[in-house]
């Protein structure tokens, strides 16, 4: 694609600005695809830093970590290696809504990633402040640094997180910066705005960090993790790599709420200083107290930030109230009566680029060879950021390699849902992934990530040869487990019946396959062991097979819905299509369609404000176009049939068809 691009000189193939979770995956993807890659960060000590909570995963987020992992990203491996508490959320519920979340040792996490970066061929890491982009006729040619130097590259990926024009709020006091201890990136968003980008403002917040020795743990409730680990990464060992610790539960009190209510005028959120929109699902404690006024208490988890640190993260209590107010209300929470705060909570307000201005490949529409990933696109969360980083890194590399754009479909991955949502609908608040955002949730499970993306990953080539072999091996083991479940039979002899009663499940009246037995809701894979069936106990093998067998009926129905949706998902819309020509579209619809330029009719349907009748109109227009195209080549005869042309003579003057006036 860029063969004809002549740059004065290219120091690198790809520059990645930022070293957060998006930047890391982008760099690794690009360099692993053979591109000479430069990572520029304002602070090399904060690479892959967990700026907020010391944990990875969660419902729908855990799904994305596994997807990143199968595709060859690093997040899953790092999270497994530094896990100090492992939990499978919703383990009692159906397979599609189970999600993995781990607590991490945040410093070990960063160290793990830093080590990976330093071992990575084709990758250079440098510390520096990016001032602006080098632009030439709508193409990004590299970056200008604060010190006046220029670095040229064929593609640039921006992953600046909350740093663009970042402002931190501590009560009514404001300090420029993207994170405590780090400078904001100033100038970049102004340049993009000047170029015509719509740049908006969002906010997020973080809670206080407490000293562990100042907490009375006896007044809190310990929360332990699961005893068995099912690692994020198929490449990780099936065991804990660090000692496991507990988190502790406590709750706010009426007194806490009273103090917060009394001091709302000192909250920048509530006195109108912050213009940015915060996340509704991860609200500050001020928000929670005001929005759920009838609730006497909100839970909070006290989470250790690591094995060797004294800091405790106070999950659920993010705030931007002044320090003295924070201390006052914290001390009303049981266990925190004498708490020492090491660092107070604060809010960050930052610029983001309205994401409908980027393509699915995460390249911006206005500027070629410029890719955006992470919070700059309006998302929230490490996992959402890393997922975009990987996709942006791959696409930056692909654009140089002349390879097809890398886009994941909505029925294949949460990452596909994430990016399609962003570029189609945009976002007004920090976008966080939820299982409900995936309309094909039942087939987008954690357990079947390898089945969904394994082959694609091998073709993509980010995983090393060892991991590739493992992917293939696990796949063949799953196939053979399913085969033996289908072919091996269980006969109704006395011994078998006795064992079945122990499970307990009903006895057999005729021989059945193990697959049929496993379909019974009360029978699990581990029960089959006792019936002399040899089960592959690797959860990467047994879990997906068991779920596919148990929920075959629902999975089939979900697949039927996917097939139905394909009718429109697979109908391409040319980026050159001028929607203004289509009759029956409102001005608003025309404006939106022309701006977003959906890839398919399916995507067009998802644009908010585009009505169902618009889809019909587009469809009809496309047909007429096809028809015009065809009639230009063949002199078609007129005929009256369902899709055919009606004979003109039948509507000649004077022979009005009855009912024509309807």
């Amino acid at each position, binding site marked *: 694609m860029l063969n004809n691009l002549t740059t004065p000189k290219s120091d690198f193939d790809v520059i990645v600005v930022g070293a957060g979770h998006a930047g890391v995956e982008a760099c690794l993807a690009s360099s692993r695809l053979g591109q000479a890659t430069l990572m520029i960060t304002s602070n090399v000590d904060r690479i892959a830093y967990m700026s907020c909570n010391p944990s990875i995963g969660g419902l729908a987020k855990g799904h994305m970590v596994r997807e990143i992992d199968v595709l060859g990203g690093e997040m899953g491996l790092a999270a497994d290696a530094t896990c100090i508490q492992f939990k499978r959320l919703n383990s009692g519920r159906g397979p599609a809504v189970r999600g993995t979340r781990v607590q991490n040792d945040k410093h070990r996490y960063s160290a793990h990633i830093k080590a990976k970066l330093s071992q990575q061929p084709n990758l250079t890491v440098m510390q520096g402040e990016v001032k602006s982009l080098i632009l030439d006729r709508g193409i990004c040619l590299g970056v200008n640094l604060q010190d006046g130097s220029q670095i040229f590259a064929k593609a640039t990926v921006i992953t600046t997180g909350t740093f663009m024009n970042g402002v931190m709020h501590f009560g009514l006091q404001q300090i420029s910066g993207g994170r405590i201890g780090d400078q904001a990136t100033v100038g970049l968003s102004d340049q993009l705005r000047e170029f015509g980008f719509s740049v908006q403002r969002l906010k997020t917040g973080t809670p206080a960090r407490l000293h562990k020795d100042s907490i009375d743990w006896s007044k809190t409730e310990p929360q332990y993790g699961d005893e068995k680990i099912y690692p994020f990464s198929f490449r990780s060992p099936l065991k804990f790599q660090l000692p496991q610790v507990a988190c502790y539960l406590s709750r706010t009190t009426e007194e806490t709420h009273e103090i917060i209510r009394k001091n709302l005028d000192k909250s920048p959120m509530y006195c109108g200083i912050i213009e940015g929109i915060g996340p509704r699902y991860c609200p500050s404690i001020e928000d929670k107290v005001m929005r759920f006024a009838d609730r006497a208490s909100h839970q909070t988890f006290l989470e250790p930030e690591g094995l060797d640190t004294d800091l405790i993260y106070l999950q659920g209590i993010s705030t931007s109230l002044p320090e003295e107010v924070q201390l006052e209300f914290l001390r009303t929470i049981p266990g925190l009566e004498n708490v020492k705060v090491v660092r107070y909570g604060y809010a960050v307000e930052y610029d983001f680029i309205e994401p409908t201005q980027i393509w699915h490949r995460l390249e911006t529409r206005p500027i070629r060879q410029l890719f955006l990933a992470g919070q700059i696109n309006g998302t929230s969360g490490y996992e959402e950021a890393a997922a975009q980083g990987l996709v942006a890194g791959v696409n930056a590399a692909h654009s140089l390699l002349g390879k097809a754009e890398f886009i994941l479909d909505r029925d294949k991955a949460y990452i596909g849902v994430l990016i399609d949502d962003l570029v189609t609908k945009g976002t007004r608040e920090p976008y966080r992934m939820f299982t409900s955002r995936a*309309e094909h949730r039942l087939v987008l499970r954690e357990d079947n990530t390898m089945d969904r993306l394994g082959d694609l990953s091998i073709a993509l080539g980010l995983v090393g040869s060892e991991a590739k072999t493992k992917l293939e091996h696990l796949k063949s083991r799953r196939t053979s487990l399913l085969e033996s479940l289908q072919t091996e039979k269980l006969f109704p002899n006395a011994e078998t019946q006795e064992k079945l009663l122990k499970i307990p499940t009903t006895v057999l009246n005729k021989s059945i396959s193990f697959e049929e037995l496993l379909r019974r809701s009360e029978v699990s894979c581990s029960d089959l062991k006792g019936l002399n069936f040899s089960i592959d106990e690797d959860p990467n093998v047994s879990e997906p097979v068991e779920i596919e067998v148990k929920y075959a009926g629902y999975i089939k129905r979900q697949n039927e819905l996917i097939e139905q949706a394909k009718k429109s998902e697979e109908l391409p819309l040319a980026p050159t299509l001028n929607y203004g020509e289509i009759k029956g579209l409102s001005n608003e619809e025309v404006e939106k369609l022309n701006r977003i330029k959906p890839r398919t009719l399916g995507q067009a349907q998802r644009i908010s404000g585009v009505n169902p009748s618009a889809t019909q109109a587009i469809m009809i227009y496309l047909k007429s176009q096809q028809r015009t195209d065809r009639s230009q080549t063949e002199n078609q005869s007129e005929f009256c049939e369902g899709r055919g042309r009606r004979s003109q003579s039948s509507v000649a003057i004077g022979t009005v068809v009855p009912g024509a006036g309807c």
Partner: protein
Amino acid sequence: MRNTLQNKDRDLDTICAISTPQGVGGISVIRVSGPEATALTRKICDFFPLKPESHRAYYGHLSDPRTASVVDEVVALYFQKGRSFTAEDTVEISCHGNPSIAREILSLLTSHGGRIADRGEFTYRAFMNGRIDLVQAESVLSLIESQSKAAAMQSLRQLQGDLSDELVKIEDILVWCLAHLEASIDFSSEGIEVVKQSDLETKMGDLKGKIDKLVKSFQQGRLIKDGLKVVLTGIPNVGKSSLLNLLVEEDRAIVTPVPGTTRDVIEASTNVQGLKVNFVDTAGLRVSQDMVEKIGIEKSYLAQRGADAVFFVFDSSNSLSEEELKELADLSESNLYLIGNKRDQGELDIEARRIAVLKQVSQSIFFKDLPGFCDKLKERVLIVSALDKKDGEVIRANLVKRLEVEQFEDQAVLFQARHYEKLSVASRNMERSLVLLRQQASPEFLALEMKEALLSVQDTLGKRFDDDVLDRVFKEFCIGK
């Protein structure tokens, strides 16, 4: 129609058509719709203002601008863009009901740039301009084709959006349930109870009730649209064909005194209190040696099966034969009426004849396994004469009253088989959803069931892209019948 669907340029044309039926009448209406509607009207109606007021009628002489000769005195009614049926600028020109006048006006319009509308094109434009939804578009079709007042009424209500309104209500509740279900999945770790199970169950039960009511109404909808089917049966020569002729008020069946005259199934329709009723006369039921008559009798049995009502006709001047009683027992499952013909013959009065018949039935061995059959029949024995027109009225009135067709009057009714299919699917989804909810199954499965139900409702409303549905609906406009 289709060429409109196929050709975008045609959608920019100003279309015109005579909107009233062909033939001589009081007035005829010519409808003109499109961007040039007012300009076009002004060319032939010099009294029509440059900027007419919407929903206002203008009176004047319509003339041929080339010859300046007056064609007719007319009233031109203007509907502004956005406030008309098609959502385009529309003018309706009312002229005198002479077909040649209407045709001349139409010809003037076309020679000044108008185009004759295709069948259904006004509706198509209303749909394309978002003025009506798919359900309403379909109702326009039924409205045109309605063969009775009841059917027309229902179509009109559908066009006015009764069914759409009901479906949108259903859609809203479905979305509410889904949203709460989804939220309870996504916030499961926050320790917040998003929705109480009992609240959800109430809503879902309500939803199922609404959907089921619509599904059930299809039977009624079908009755209203296609009419009732009433089969006349009985042994030969009791006067079934005479009765048919009486009921439809014309001589449809050949009547002779020879038993077995009717050898095939004869159908004739009439309108009873605004409802279409199809009467089916069948070959008399008897053991016959005649090949043709045998086939006819076979068909008679078949015809009884799909009937909304069966009239068992007998000769009331005689008692019922064993053969007839056996036949009656066989028909006990159907919506049966006993029509005793030949009131004018024989001695007994009407009441005595009714009592005699009922007594005979109650004492017959064929009915000893059918308790309650006699009671059911009590109100359903009519003694008539096929020669008396008044008796025809009595039978018809009785029939409509009993079938209770009006019970759905205040509610949206399903007409189209397409709607019925979709909503039946949704009903089954709701059924399963409620089971899953009570079993406390994982909410993701419940969500799938509800999502499928939602898609069915949206399909019915034409909210989801489906080329095939669009084709099916507008094809009927195109070809006609």
